[in-house]
């Protein structure tokens, strides 16, 4: 009896600890948001959203920055999504346990650990120099795609792995080819997990400044990009730039820009969470 009481006590204790941990995360988040909102919210108005950059803290705006961020987001998703999911499918469904498959697996795990700044150096050499893309949106999106590719691959694989073998058996036994099984059964069933991975990786891409600075994203761009070959700036660079300016007004601007950046990621995450929950409701093994 003492034993089961102590078990129960441990159980309760862990519950309290669990609440505490969850709470800590949320409290830190709240402090963050409060700090940023307190500093930046007053600065956000239509002019701030729609103005071109300016040296005057009060008059500057983030039009080109958020437009660039959206461009980068979309282009990166377009490039990285098929590549990442494709590689994930290949490794999980096709690759036999060969040396190549093993090597690919280790290689991808390693790529996930390569710091973003090194991807910046890579992008500078490959896309900007060799492929002559210059400091364009396309070069930036390609660089960020490489950066998030390993994350997408790894999470895609995990999601695919969670689909029970019996579902594949069922499909194969009905004469479905490998690809039909993947397309009709495995992907729909693992879509929620894949989506989570892509969200996490895209939200990383959205906040990334260092590699874009290296490949030549700019700080002052007085026009919104009109094609993937245009030059651009993005919100994190604008923020990074502003936080290092001496005038207090720019610190406020940075906070305001952070609010906008967070808003973009929240919208993204919200959409994905909605999709994921809908998915999870549909599928219960």
């Amino acid at each position: 009896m003492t034993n089961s009481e102590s078990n129960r006590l441990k159980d309760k204790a862990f519950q309290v600890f669990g609440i505490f941990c969850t709470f800590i995360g949320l409290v830190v988040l709240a402090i963050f948001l409060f700090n940023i909102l307190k500093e930046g919210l007053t600065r956000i108005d239509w002019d701030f959203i729609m103005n071109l950059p300016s040296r005057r803290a009060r008059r500057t705006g983030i039009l080109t920055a958020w437009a660039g961020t959206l461009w980068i987001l979309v282009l990166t998703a377009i490039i990285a999504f098929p590549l990442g999911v494709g590689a994930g499918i290949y490794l999980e469904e096709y690759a036999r346990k060969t040396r190549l498959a093993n090597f690919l697996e280790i290689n991808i795990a390693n790529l996930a650990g390569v710091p973003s700044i090194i991807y910046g150096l890579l992008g500078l050499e490959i896309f900007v120099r060799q492929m002559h893309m210059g400091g364009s949106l396309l070069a930036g999106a390609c660089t960020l795609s490489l950066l998030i590719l390993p994350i997408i691959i790894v999470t895609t694989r995990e999601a695919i792995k969670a689909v029970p073998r019996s579902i594949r058996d069922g499909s194969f036994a009905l004469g479905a080819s490998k690809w039909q099984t993947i397309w009709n059964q495995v992907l729909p069933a693992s879509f929620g997990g894949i989506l989570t991975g892509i969200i996490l990786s895209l939200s990383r891409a959205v906040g990334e400044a260092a590699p874009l600075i290296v490949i030549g994203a700019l700080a002052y761009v007085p026009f919104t990009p009109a094609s993937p070959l245009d030059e651009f700036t993005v919100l994190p660079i604008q923020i990074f730039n502003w936080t290092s300016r001496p005038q207090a007004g720019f610190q406020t601007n940075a906070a305001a820009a952070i609010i906008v950046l967070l808003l973009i990621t929240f919208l993204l995450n919200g959409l994905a969470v909605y999709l994921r929950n809908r998915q999870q409701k549909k599928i219960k093994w």
Partner: protein
Amino acid sequence: MRVSEKIIEGLLWLSAVITILITIGIVWVLLSESVSFFREVSIVEFLTDRQWTPLFAVKKFGIMPLVAGTFLTTAIAIAVALPIGLTIAIYLNEYAHARLKQTVKPLLEILATIPTVVYGFFALTVVTPFLQSFIPKLAGFNALSAGMVMGIMIIPMISSLSEDAISAVPKSLREAAYGMGSTRLQTAFGVMVPAASSGIMVSVILAISRAVGETMIVAIAAGQQPRLTLNPLVPIETITTYIVQVSLGDVPHGSLEYKTIFAAGITLFIFTFALNNISFWIKKKYQEKYD
């Protein structure tokens, strides 16, 4: 039909093989510069010298201080993120109501989306002064608060991905555990966590990678003093900080000083390579399969 199957497989193969090209690209970019670095600086000096002062008049090229700094901040971050993140994952899975889980999980994921520049300033202007109020010896720039804030940033990587992994464990296992009279804690640690270990491992690998590669937080809050120490209370410098510092700074490109970042970069690359192989091996060994 058979042809289209082959084509699809070929395309998928291609997207997998691109990752090898990326690695080749990285190694090529890093190697081509660091080879000429190592022509001027011996590898022995690079590995054994206890000082890193390539930008000073008296130049020393010992990578160890940067490695120590990287290790220290990463260890602190993981020490914060792993227990908290895993606890959250288990709590959400075994204890919390479905609706709470659905709200909390995405809220926590926000932590991973906040730009790291912001975290850096948070560490410097909020966490460090707070810690200084009960650790008077704590320097204004230090590994401790940078590492802790980095840990907070990577909590959602561990909590979300581990939670996904635990959710994916077949329901029947949980039922079996409860059917034996397990408490929730026993179910979690005796059955669910071991069963989800490969997924949890993956989340931790990703978190470590993120911590090792993280730049802005440490650059802002940990100081930029390469120093061979594991004392979390003093300023240190990580490999990434050094790379970003030099590549954004005023050092002429092509100079020996500039090449140091490639030498540092390749060190970092080897470092993560070793790390990943260890966790890879662990994962392989303990992975379980279900139907």
